[in-house]
């Protein structure tokens, strides 16, 4: 088992490195750099930036040197914990990002938990009571979840909320507590606002879980060992839950790892629509403004966070059931 964890850890390190390179490349891709867009911004406001000023700015921000040098500089800074300055906000990147990254984590994890808490029981029910009304409803909801992209769902729900209830369902906090320091009240406020974004984010994943669980369980329910269990005199509930459900759960284990990146990904757009104070809207603005340090750091942190989360879930699963790693083909 240690060997398995070791392998996953090494792979994770590679992944993080790949992300850092990609993040850096993304930032460097647009022609021109922050200074050019700064100049353009100044020009649109009527002021002019001289060439000398531009040059000084460039040196100051370290732009203009060969790529790999800039990359290594960036890496060294990061290892020291210095993520650079956001040129647009003129504050350290860490300040600008602030608690947004943690909130992204919170929303993503909430969505992930939801897919399991909702998806599995409904999937089990669907399979055991095949063709019942409940089964059809669950299947239908499942298809909605798969067919409607999460950001469109967010949009529609926003509209309905606004028009029907005159309520603004976006956001993770009530206006009063938006910028307040952390307190029990704030945590509670967050929990109250969490269900809707988590549901929107997690609906597609939930639908997927329902479908897979239903299909797997239907396969297992026909197998002889279920009959054996029944013939021993076990109650029907125990027969189902102890045996076929347990076997049907196995293929899931390998899918957890890849649900997290998907959810984190989705949270970016959904946050934009719902106006959540997470990393999504910030990233969008940073990319449009070509704010190099900010955008690159967000992509890097987002990626690293996802990889760590995936690694933790992999380790947890192997710890729970060593047999799972046999599924790794």
């Amino acid at each position, binding site marked *: 088992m240690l060997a398995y964890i070791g392998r996953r850890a090494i792979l994770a390190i590679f992944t993080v490195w790949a992300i850092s390179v990609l993040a850096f490349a993304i930032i460097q891709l647009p022609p021109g750099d922050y200074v050019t867009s700064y100049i353009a911004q100044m020009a649109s406001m009527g002021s002019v930036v001289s060439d000398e000023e531009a040059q000084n700015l460039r040196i100051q921000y370290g732009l203009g040197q060969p790529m790999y040098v800039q990359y290594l500089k960036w890496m060294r800074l990061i290892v020291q914990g210095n993520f650079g300055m956001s040129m647009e906000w003129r504050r350290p990147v860490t300040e600008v990002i602030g608690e947004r990254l943690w909130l992204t984590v919170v929303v993503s994890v909430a969505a992930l938990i939801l897919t399991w808490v909702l998806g599995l029981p409904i999937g089990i029910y669907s399979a055991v009571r095949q063709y019942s009304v409940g089964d059809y409803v669950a299947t239908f909801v499942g298809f909605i979840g798969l067919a409607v992209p999460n950001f469109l769902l967010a949009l529609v729900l926003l509209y309905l909320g606004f028009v029907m209830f005159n309520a603004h369902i976006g956001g993770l906090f009530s206006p009063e507590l938006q910028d307040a320091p952390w307190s029990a009240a704030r945590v509670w406020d967050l929990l109250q606002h969490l269900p809707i974004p988590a549901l929107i984010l997690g609906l597609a994943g939930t639908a997927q879980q329902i479908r897979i669980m239903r299909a797997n369980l239907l396969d297992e329910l026909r*197998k*002889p*060992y279920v*009959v*054996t*269990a*029944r*013939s*021993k*005199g*076990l*109650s*029907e509930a125990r027969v189902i839950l*102890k*045996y076929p459900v*347990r*076997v049907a759960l*196995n293929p899931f284990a390998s899918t957890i790892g890849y649900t997290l990146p998907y959810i984190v990904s989705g949270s970016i757009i959904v946050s934009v629509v719902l106006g959540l104070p997470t990393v999504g809207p910030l990233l969008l603005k940073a990319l449009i403004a070509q704010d190099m340090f900010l955008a690159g750091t967000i992509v890097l942190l987002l990626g690293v966070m996802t990889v760590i989360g995936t690694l933790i879930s992999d380790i947890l699963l192997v710890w729970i059931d060593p*047999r799972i790693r046999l599924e790794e083909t």
Partner: protein
Amino acid sequence: MACATRLIHMAAEPLLSVRNLKTYFTQDEGTVRAVDGVSLDMAPGATLGIVGESGCGKSITARSIMRIVDRPGRIVEGEVYFRRPSNPGGGKGQVVDLAKLEPNGLEMRSIRGAEIALIFQEPMSSFSPVHSVGNQIIEAIQLHQPLGRREARERAIEMLRRVGVSSPEERVNQLSYQLSGGLRQRAMIAMALSCEPTLLIADEPTTALDVTTQTQILELMRRLQQEDGMAIMLITHDLGVVAEMATDVVVMYLGRVVEQAPVDAIFHDPRHPYTRALLRSIPRIRSRTRERLTPIAGAVPHPYDRPTGCPFHPRCPDFMPGTCDRQAPSLRSVGDHHAVSCFLYE
């Protein structure tokens, strides 16, 4: 020739008495009459062999008795009288109609696994792939007996030893795929017998095993039967196994009993044309070379396509037009505990 001890009479009251059992499967395409009026009796300690081709309803009969028929199957008619074991305080055990009990109710579940046990054909897929063999045996024990975990485990190990599994302390922790076919079947028998049932239903227990293992398992079953005095309902399509193990035989075709007799009578004096054809179709070791095999003509009809009248008449060499295709014959006695369902004998 070591045959089972023959029970001439069923003078003592029967352990199990099935009366006109009908189990139908209703689906969109039609209704499958899997068990269509089966009646049979089992004496305590006897071995009843149930033979027939695949699809004749033997397994469904067993499952109907155990009340574990899958949806959309249902018992639509009939009774299954089972004499429950008497209390140690004396007195005869009560007779209960299993067909009337709630399949998932407390009473049926306390009978199932403890008083009537079932073993299956495919021990590999009959054991859960993710739980140890011991776990599953212990579960059966703890379900029906008030034993703690440790005692249940010891009892499981003891059962394994009794059925001839070597190093049972290790085996008890293994998964089913780690055991050979013969060991698995022994483990399954251990699990079934762990609560000392009075009736063991064995659904094709040796079909998936090679011949040597087959013999061992059959020997094992015989030995256990002698030690515990339980009755065995042996479902098989192998007439050889029947000859070796059974005291009485029931022949089934398309969900009905066509002939019922003590084992010797079935082999030496078969009455029903189907029984005769079955026996004829066995390849004989003493036959001349190049002699043709004699299978039964035709094929088993599609379940949705049952023939009217006697279900066997399209393939019967003694078919009597006008009689056999009009009505189904009923089971009538033709001798000493010998009954046939055929118009030839009415």
